[in-house]
């Protein structure tokens, strides 16, 4: 085969360009930690907020409208996939932050947020909480804006005989009846796994799952997908929020879907918001924090987020009253979770295979 001059030339050029771009790619991940606070730019009449994908449009609209009305500020609210993706985004941008504020992480991210130094603290001028345990961070790196409980939800039309306890869940009559959410990708899934650890302890939860495995139909990557399968009848039980049935009661007029609370206890999930470290529009971000803990905003939480508001002054709609009573909030210490979660997840994955 004759080697043409042109061929050799392009091969060499290509090689050089590839090498150069690979080196250029190195510029993507800087090993030096540049302190974003030092390079804070001038503020503008804008506010950029990150949130998870399923943030309801009505909440978004109310934020946009509020800022436009009160301050003449343009709000750009970006919805980014699942909670994990939001965190990833912040992390990737940590040296040159794009967003000013973030809404929708949950309390379990706190240790990591502290370590990765992604947020700046801010204490809102007035913070009224309906339950004291909602104050997950007294340093105010994050501020709560709604909460809920992670429970098993079931379809009353498909299940006449719902399980009454954790042990009951293991019963063979529930074979292939449960849709689990992946703790690695989904926040509720993650919290459900933690709930089992809280219930059975680090030594016992794997045994639970070993026995429970046959009853699990599938493990979905996201809550949307899992819940979708659930409502389509693929399985009569799913991991979801204790408040999910309220949606069906309110908007579909049906009592069909219900939440299961064992022993009056359920795992607490608190959703939080915070200001991004090195945020350009710091003042507007502060205004946002003030706004989302205000009663005006909190009034919308139940019927848009289908979660509980943190503000004590909000009256819950009837649909929310009909659920089971929860006397005790279950949580695990966030630092302990942070330290062990990866191991717990790996072990869980091993068992689930």
């Amino acid at each position, binding site marked *: 085969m004759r080697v*043409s*001059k*042109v*061929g050799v*030339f*392009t*091969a060499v*050029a*290509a090689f050089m*360009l*590839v090498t150069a*771009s*690979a080196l*250029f*790619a*190195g510029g*993507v*991940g*800087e*090993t030096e930690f540049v302190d974003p606070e030092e390079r804070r730019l001038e503020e503008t009449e804008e506010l950029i907020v990150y949130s998870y*994908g*399923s943030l*309801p*449009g009505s909440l978004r609209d109310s934020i946009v409208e509020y800022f436009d009305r009160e301050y003449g500020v343009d709000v750009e609210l*970006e*919805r*980014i*996939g699942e909670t*994990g*993706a939001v*965190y*990833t*985004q912040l992390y990737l941008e940590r040296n040159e932050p794009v967003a000013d504020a973030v809404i929708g992480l949950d309390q379990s991210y706190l240790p990591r947020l502290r370590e990765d130094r992604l947020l700046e603290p801010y204490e809102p001028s007035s913070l009224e909480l309906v339950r004291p345990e909602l104050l997950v961070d007294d340093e105010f790196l994050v501020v709560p804006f709604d909460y809920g409980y992670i429970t098993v939800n079931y379809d009353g039309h498909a299940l006449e005989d719902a399980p009454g306890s954790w042990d009951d869940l293991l019963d063979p009559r529930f074979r*292939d009846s449960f849709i*689990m959410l*992946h703790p*690695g*990708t989904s926040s509720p899934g993650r919290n459900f796994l933690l709930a089992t650890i809280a219930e059975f302890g680090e030594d016992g939860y794997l045994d639970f799952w070993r026995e429970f495995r046959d009853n*699990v*139909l*599938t*493990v979905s*990557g996201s809550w*949307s*997908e899992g*819940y*979708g399968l659930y*409502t*389509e*009848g*693929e399985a009569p039980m799913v991991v979801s929020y204790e408040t999910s049935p309220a*949606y*069906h009661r309110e*908007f*579909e007029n049906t009592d069909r879907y219900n939440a299961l609370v064992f022993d009056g206890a359920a795992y607490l999930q608190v959703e939080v918001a915070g200001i991004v470290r090195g945020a350009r529009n710091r003042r507007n971000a502060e205004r946002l924090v003030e706004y989302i803990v205000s009663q005006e905003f909190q009034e919308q939480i139940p019927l848009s987020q289908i979660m509980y508001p943190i503000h004590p002054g909000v009256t819950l709609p009837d649909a929310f009253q009909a659920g089971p009573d929860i006397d005790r909030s279950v949580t695990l210490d966030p630092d302990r979770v942070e330290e062990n979660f*990866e191991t717990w997840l*790996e072990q869980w*994955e091993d068992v*689930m*295979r």
Partner: protein
Amino acid sequence: MGRRDALRSGAPYLIAAVFVLLTVPPVLTVLGAGALERGASAWLEEARRVLAQTGTWRSLRFSVIQAVVSAALSIAIALPGAYFLSHIRFAGRRLVQSVSLLPFVLPSLIVILAIISFYGRSGVLNQLLGTRFAFVYSAGGIILAHILFNISIALRMISAAWMQVDQRLREVSLSLGEGNLRRVLRLHLPLLLPAILNAATVIFLYCFVSFGVVLVFGGVRFATLEVRIYQAMFMNLNLSAAGALALLQLAVCGVAVFAAHRLAARRLAVATRGRRFVMRSGREISWITTVICYGYWVALGVFLFTPLASIALRAFYRNGRWSTAAFRSLIAGSIGDRDIHQIIRADFFELVTTSLAIAGLCAAVTTAAGFIAARAVRGRKVPWLDTLTMAPLAISGVTFSLGLRLLWFGIIPGPVLIIVAQGVMAFPLVFRILRTAMEGVPLRYTETAKSLGAGTLFRVRTLEIPVLWRSILNAYAFGFALSLADFTAVLTIGRGAIVTFPIAMYRLIGFQSFDVALALGVWYIIVVAAAFVAIDLTSHAREKEGL
């Protein structure tokens, strides 16, 4: 040697260079990002750790096994079909070929929904049988979905190769008294082996890096390497681990691609220099064969389309009643109180224009690039280039898109990056189609035109495009459909800000709008598929579409 000759013989290298430039840096970025961030030693340690995990090897093993099984089954099912397509000119032949492409060009999400609608626990099949089988939520579902996707590829590639078999061999066999079945088994199959293995490798690669299907049906139990890469990347934020896994995946794919290359280089031993393959018309065959033939196509059609039909069924038949509520919601743009536009986070107009614009541009760019490349290597045997351009099949969509984003985001606008990502992933097929099509304008025609004084542009305008327009259109349709159906690149690069059809559907699957998602899916199938099939049908003017 003259300058022109140098340019012509250098063309493959030029193409390869451009190609490598587009595809390698993003992948390298992902592979190395972890290292550049925390240092090479940390990267190595992380890599060692993740490679030591049994989970890694288990998922590698599963990836390989499910891909091999999917490929083997796809080919086994497709073989009789390929025989009929290449040997018998039966009524509806072209229709069958075009229509079998449908699952391939639909977004994987729709196919997944289709499978759930039909084979799911509360799906049509279980309802008909009165059972509650859950086999789809396992390797079974994954393999089933893969077969649905890939059967058309197997059909096309193998039937095209079969048509190359010299007619005279068949005649010799007949004159020696050999029966049909025996001839197929003893004569044709060995000759076809390179083509079969080639098709198997292509399908293997698709299945190996398959993502959406594995995610939905595999859950945790059945995870492929691709899923683990995704998890490492987006859940654990462990770029180093993700990079190491991606490297492992690439290595395996590299082996597969290399194997394919060696096989493809060993072309069919018997060229078509002999008599052109003559197909028997419908009238010439025995009635048994006719029955088997049509029976096969009916069975295959049922297999391919009952899932799709069940989407429609589920969209219309809700809670025991026939209802067009889902469609009405779709058209009205609201589900109960909630605005659909809020759910999918884009208004309908924006959705349609974005989707069509990206797909249209991507297809145009990819087709143009494919045309130029195919033209440049026309008439030459460059198996290594054919293999190289197949490489995108082996690159994980997530890895590639992420790499593009890490490299160029902020410098190059998102939609452009999406087009690049989708273009690169569609290029193997588009290039193949155009390369095969170029045989319709052999070098002699070009030389004749040259001797008559025609320059390059004139020739393209008056000779190549008029003869090849059908194939060009076919390639464009492919690029368009694949781009439209893409989910990964749009999501990874657009970060949810850019909404195209698959993303809209995915968002609709969530809270209580499942039926609307189905309705949208039905609409998509009808509109896009009809257009695509129509175009593909018209492009079958000549039998050269060997994909």
